[in-house]
């Protein structure tokens, strides 16, 4: 019989040193560090072009729809599924928006709402087969990919449709106006950056206080300061750079709000926790009273809505809907989620990881384009980076 008392069993963990903590949490920090390393690399080899305000704005605009879809894809992959149809949904919804506004004369607001609903319905149609009929998601969404690619062509009659009303274009090309009226410097951008830094610091201090209160293993105080300080400096520096150009793009704000929302949903809400449980062990989740079918269905509905939103943003950015829009996006999105550390078997993955993964892909796309590397070798390099990132992750997990 074990004679140790509960107190002995509960002895608070010994103080961890920096190195030990970093080693233990390598997967959490490793991603961010690799992104910074990649950015630094391209900043140097492009002679500073990468981080110029104009290019930085482009980088955000080019990646916004990938990031937004990665949020939905993360939930789908965490739930143990995959969605191959998102690229086609982007094309279809973009085409639908174009037809509604340009040909049928709807206003941008009605169009936006209708397109998001259509995206949700497409997700629901696919999720239904996956969740309730147990058809593998790979098959269902492969079918969806073909169907909506075809429907996009049919809808647009094989032609490009545009241009859009100015109000709609602002979705992608607009910037948050400066309410402080700065000349050549957008104070609103700086203000929003500072506000988000303050919020971020507030929440991490609160979390740390809770952790300390309950004798949970915490990051060493120095590392905590370093991490938060670094993030604060990065955000402020980024916003300052943007402020010297035209301020924060509308899309960036939409994206940031969505990222924060999904980070919250996955970390702190019951529905988020249940999606992880579902992907981690569907049988155990079911026997714990979780409605696994409905949850699977909802993750696909959510993916559809986000793909619809991405379709609108992409169409607004090009100011025209083309039958080829969205082609191959699903690959970038799925790659972003896996580079971000999600597990192909489900149950593991983080919103922050997926976002970082999306930016790794984005920075590489952007950096290599500046360097003039052809689209041929860009794909080769991106493919190898995906393989390397995931192999490293698998290797780390085995240890």
């Amino acid at each position, binding site marked *: 019989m074990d004679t140790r008392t*509960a107190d002995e069993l509960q002895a608070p963990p010994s103080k961890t040193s920096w190195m030990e903590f970093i080693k233990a949490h390598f997967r959490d920090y490793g991603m961010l560090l690799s992104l910074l390393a990649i950015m630094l690399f391209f900043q140097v080899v492009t002679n500073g072009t990468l981080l110029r305000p104009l290019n930085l704005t482009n980088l955000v605009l080019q990646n916004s729809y990938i990031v937004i879809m990665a949020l939905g894809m993360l939930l789908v992959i965490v739930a143990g599924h995959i969605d191959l149809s998102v690229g086609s949904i982007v094309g279809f919804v973009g085409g639908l928006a174009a037809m509604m506004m340009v040909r049928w004369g709807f206003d941008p607001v009605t169009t936006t709402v209708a397109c998001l609903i259509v995206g949700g319905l497409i997700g629901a149609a696919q999720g239904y087969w996956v969740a309730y009929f147990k058809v593998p998601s790979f098959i269902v969404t492969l079918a969806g990919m073909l169907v909506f690619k075809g429907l996009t062509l049919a809808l647009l009659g094989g032609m490009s449709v545009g241009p859009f009303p100015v109000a709609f274009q602002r979705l992608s090309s607009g910037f948050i106006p400066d309410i402080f009226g700065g000349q050549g410097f957008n104070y609103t951008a700086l203000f929003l950056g500072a506000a988000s830094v303050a919020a971020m610091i507030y929440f991490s201090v609160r979390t740390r206080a809770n952790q300390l209160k309950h004798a949970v293993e915490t990051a060493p105080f120095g590392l905590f300061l370093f991490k938060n300080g670094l993030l604060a400096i990065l955000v402020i520096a980024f916003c300052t750079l943007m402020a010297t150009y035209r301020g924060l793009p509308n899309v960036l704000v939409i994206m940031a709000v969505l990222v924060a929302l999904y980070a919250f949903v996955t970390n702190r809400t019951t529905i988020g926790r249940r999606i992880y449980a579902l992907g981690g062990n569907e*049988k155990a989740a079911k026997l714990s009273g979780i409605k696994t079918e409905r949850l699977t269905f909802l993750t696909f509905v959510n993916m559809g809505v986000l793909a619809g939103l991405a379709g609108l943003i992409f169409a607004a950015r090009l100011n025209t809907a083309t039958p080829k829009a969205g082609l191959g996006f699903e690959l970038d999105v799925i790659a972003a989620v896996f580079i971000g550390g999600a597990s192909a078997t489900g149950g593991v993955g983080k919103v922050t990881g997926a976002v970082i993964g999306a930016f790794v892909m984005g920075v590489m796309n952007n950096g290599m384009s500046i360097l003039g590397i052809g689209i041929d070798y860009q794909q080769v390099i991106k493919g190898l980076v995906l393989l390397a990132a995931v192999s490293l992750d698998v290797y780390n997990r085995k240890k």
Partner: protein
Amino acid sequence: MNAILEMRGITKSFPGVKALDNVNITVKAGEIHALVGENGAGKSTLMKVLSGVYPYGSYSGEIRYEGRERRFSGISDSEALGIIIIHQELALVPLLSIAENIFLGNEPATYGVIDWSLAFAKTKELLKVVGLDESPETLVTNLGVGKQQLVEIAKALSKKVKLLILDEPTASLNERDSDALLRLLLQFKAQGISSILISHKLNEISKVADAITVLRDGSTVETLDCRAETISEDRIIRGMVGRTMEDRYPKREPKIGETIFQVENWCAYHPLHSNIQVVKNVGLKIHRGEIVGIAGLMGAGRTEFAMSLFGRSYGQNISGRVTLHGKPIDVSTVEKAVANGIAYATEDRKTYGLILADDIRKNVTIANLEGVSTNLVIDDIRELSVANDYRAKMRIRSSSVFQEAVNLSGGNQQKVVLSKWLFSDPEILILDEPTRGIDVGAKYEIYTIINRLADAGKGVLMISSEMPELLGMCDRIYVMNEGSLVAEFASTEASQEKIMHAIVKTGRR
């Protein structure tokens, strides 16, 4: 008569457990040798040693077969010498034909090209020998279990079998199929093929066996010779269960109150075959503060009963009535069953109980997230204190509640599963094999927890294949066999012999 097989001093250990301890068995050429023992006595482990699943070097002791010492490094070695094992869970590929299954891995082929006409012709011959009237092209999935068993035997014959090992071959067969199978064994015996028959059905054993070896707790108890004199079932049962009861169970003064939980006429059918009734008119009740056991052999339908009761997690066409405190309750989904105060801790922790990649904290709260959240938002602090609380109370040995479940020992994993269900605050806790694969020390702790629950006024329904555990823990014991409850004993009057009798007697009907 010469011995075809001698296993001497076989000892096999797994981390923390000695599964076989100095086991001896001698099988004479051309005899049917029965191997009996309780669940967990080491029968299957012994057969895995013999067939090379556990290769030479992973066990100690000596295997002599056909007069020479053998050192098998895998199943293919033992099969090459004519030792063929047919497992309880049949190893057939359902969507391949009978002929394809029989010659799987052993196809009559030249340079990789299969001679199908030869395979079909041979299959026809083999099927005639085993008395199976089916076309070689029939898919295995379209055959009943009895016929599948015959296909397995035909497959064994195709490999020039000399020693045929059958692990519980009649467990899922009806009487007619069982008799046919036993006749087949006698027929093989006449042809000089030896067999080892593992079975719980003692009446069948007395019908065909020439010798019986009894295993208990990983050791050979005795070998009985049936040729000299008839061995009674009572004699065999005594050998199987005759262990002394040690002080392995914590003391408890039961305070039993009114009936709180009752199940009436509970029926469930097999999830795929709607004509097979797996649970037959089960009715039972549990009183406040009572620990009730369900005894039975593997495959008796106990887990199926519990899972069909818990939110229809098993089977189809489920019917019956469940009442709690005299009021009928809805248990048609897991969510409703949990909400109505029922919890079920599964026998298979890793597949059905835990989310292995998640930490202790998340596993503890997953069945009752409402208990740690406000308006769908999880309250970190409350969740953490709940998890820490259970970690201390249940003595879950871990570095912190952030340790992943996959890195815990079996006993600690079980404590996490129990914590999860205790946190859902049930009235009735159904425990399915709560101590399977757990070492003795941790078992004692689990027993203590179960006693504490009963003392707190809950009702506990405990399913276990270890009879001493049921006798040591329960206030009342039901015996289940072939889907029905066949006997009920108060713990004061129950004994392993009586339970075994109840099972064996009803198995004969």
